[in-house]
């Protein structure tokens, strides 16, 4: 499954809710304010393990809009909109943690 998270983990608990319930094969795509969780910060540990497994993506345009391109945590994979579509196709059912 593909899980998209579009809220900052500092402001909402949607990333945590997502992490609490996803299975071992799911991947997470951080979009909109969700990309704040892709930066190195006090919340980075939330997704560090998943990122090491190559299961955390972030939408490039949203990262660049927030000026955090140079501050990404380790092993975050950047994708563009075409990459977003590829993830949807590859992983089937998508859940939007709005």
């Amino acid at each position, binding site marked *: 499954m593909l899980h998209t998270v579009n809220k900052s983990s500092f402001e909402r608990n949607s990333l945590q809710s997502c992490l609490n319930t996803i299975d071992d094969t799911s991947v997470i795509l951080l979009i909109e304010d969700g990309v*704040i969780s892709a930066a190195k910060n*006090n919340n980075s540990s939330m997704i560090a393990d998943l990122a090491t497994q190559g299961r955390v993506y972030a939408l490039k345009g949203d990262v660049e*809009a927030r*000026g955090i391109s140079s501050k990404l945590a380790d092993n975050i994979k950047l994708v563009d909109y075409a990459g977003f579509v590829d993830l949807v196709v590859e992983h089937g059912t998508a859940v939007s943690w709005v």
Partner: protein
Amino acid sequence: MSTKKFMYLNRRSSFGTVYALESLEVVLIAAAFEQDVSLAFIDDGVYQIVEGQNTDGIGMKNFSKTYHALGDYEINKLYVSAESLEERGLTEEDLMPLVYEDEDDDWEEKPSVKIVSNAELSKIMSEQDVCLSF
């Protein structure tokens, strides 16, 4: 017209919601009415003034440049929460170098941004006539 002390609390980042842009609009209106305006950037609001924002990839207006104009409206008290910066792995060097020209000091360019602790911010807030949170 009487002057009041207005403080605008900016708590959200720029593009996920419309709060940041709306706050900026209201700030400029208050400045047009020659009020004493301060801005505070707390929580994810600190991302509003991060240097190097590029919105080409999301098709939204990059209004971060507007913060550079605040100095010309005599808005030169921009307080940034040190705790909020640190939680987000950011430092003062990651912020836009926002300045104003000090008319009492031969128009010398001075920094508008001041990093403050939440305790200092709390004191500054208590000195305001009006605090508006966005």
